[in-house]
Structures are given as C-alpha cells and as structure tokens.
C-alpha cells in the first residue's frame, strides 16, 4: 500500500492504494472527475522528492504527493 496526498488547493483527503509505479497512481486518480482540472498541471513527488517519470517504481509505504501550481511570496 502507498499513500497519495493532495497538496494545497486540491482539497482532497489523502488516499491509500496498491501501486507498483506512478502509472497505477495516474490510472486510479483519473477515476475521480474532480481531479480532471489538476491532472495536467500537478508536479509529483515520491517521498518528498520531485520525480519526472511515470515509470518511477513505488514500494510499500511510499508517499506520493501531488503539487498543483504554486504562488509563494
């Protein structure tokens, strides 16, 4: 099981799922129509490191974070 958390304005509670790579996470998240507005603009971190490929492997207990567009300052 891994945990997926949705940061900032996404406002969706964290969820747990079975996943071997981020492909599995993407597939699962797309089932939620409210996520359509975030799919194409979120960055993704695994265990707080930003990643660049859906092939990123996941292990038991990993934390995946979705980071929507930012505006600090």
């Amino acid at each position, binding site marked *: 099981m891994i945990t997926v958390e949705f940061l900032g304005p996404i406002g969706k509670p964290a969820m747990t799922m079975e996943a071997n790579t981020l492909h599995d996470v993407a597939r699962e998240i797309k089932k939620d129509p409210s996520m359509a507005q975030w799919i194409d603009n979120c960055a*993704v971190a695994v265990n707080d490191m930003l990643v660049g490929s*859906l092939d990123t492997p996941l292990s038991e207990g990993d934390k995946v974070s979705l980071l929507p567009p930012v*505006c600090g300052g």
Partner: protein
Amino acid sequence: MLELHDGALNVPEILTRWYSDESAYNYGAYIPFVGTVRDEDGIDGLSFDVYEPILLSWFETWCLKVAPLGAKLKMAHSRGDVLNHESSYIAAVFSPKRRVALETIEQFVEDFKASAPIWKYDLKEGERIYARERSTAIAGAGLLGENK
C-alpha cells in the same frame, strides 16, 4: 536558514536579526527582498499553504548552489492569513561581493516564485479563494496526464 511564521512577518525584527547574526562574517553585501500584500482587486489579504518538506529541500539545494560563490541565503515566509499591507515573504542574500549578491537575489526570488511549494489564496468577503490564474505549474508538472 529557513523560517516559517504563522501570520504576518515582523519585518524589522527579521531584517535586524539577520543583519546582526551575520555581522561578524565579513560579508560586504546584504540584500533582503521583502514582499508585502498589496490592497488590490478588493481583497482583504492573502492566505498561504506551505508544504514544508519540499520547501526545505528546495531551499537547501539553493544554499549548496550559492555556497561556492561565498554567498549565504536566508528566507522567511508566512503560513495562513496575512492582511493587506502586511508582509508575507523575506528572502535575503549575504555575500562578500556586490555582483554575486545582486545576481543571486534575483535568481533566487524568481526561482522561488516558479518552484517553491507554496499556495496562495485571496481573502475576499470571508472566503479563501485559490489564486489559480496567478499560479505557476512547477517545472515537469503534468506527468499524470501523459499516458492518456
């Protein structure tokens, strides 16, 4: 050093403390950038969410990047509500030389705006509204949509 504060920043306290903390280290230039909430578009203020783990690693990467130039970075940011004319953000560079300081503060502040995991909301008529149109997707975003 990175510090997060609940609510508005105490700008005089922070600017003075940082200056004092570094006064013995022979830096020739100190440039703080202070960001203050503007009264515009009928807002009462702004509110911020901060994701600290990634903010910290982003900040530490920057510190390592400028260390070979002899420069040091500091940053303070607000969490939660900051009203109009209060300040929510201070970034500062210390460096032996002016050119390094001027170039570093510009690059640091611009990358901060583009990359730091902080989300901004307008406070307007009692609501907290995500500033979507002023926000920037982090470099590499959109990953999850790639295998449509």
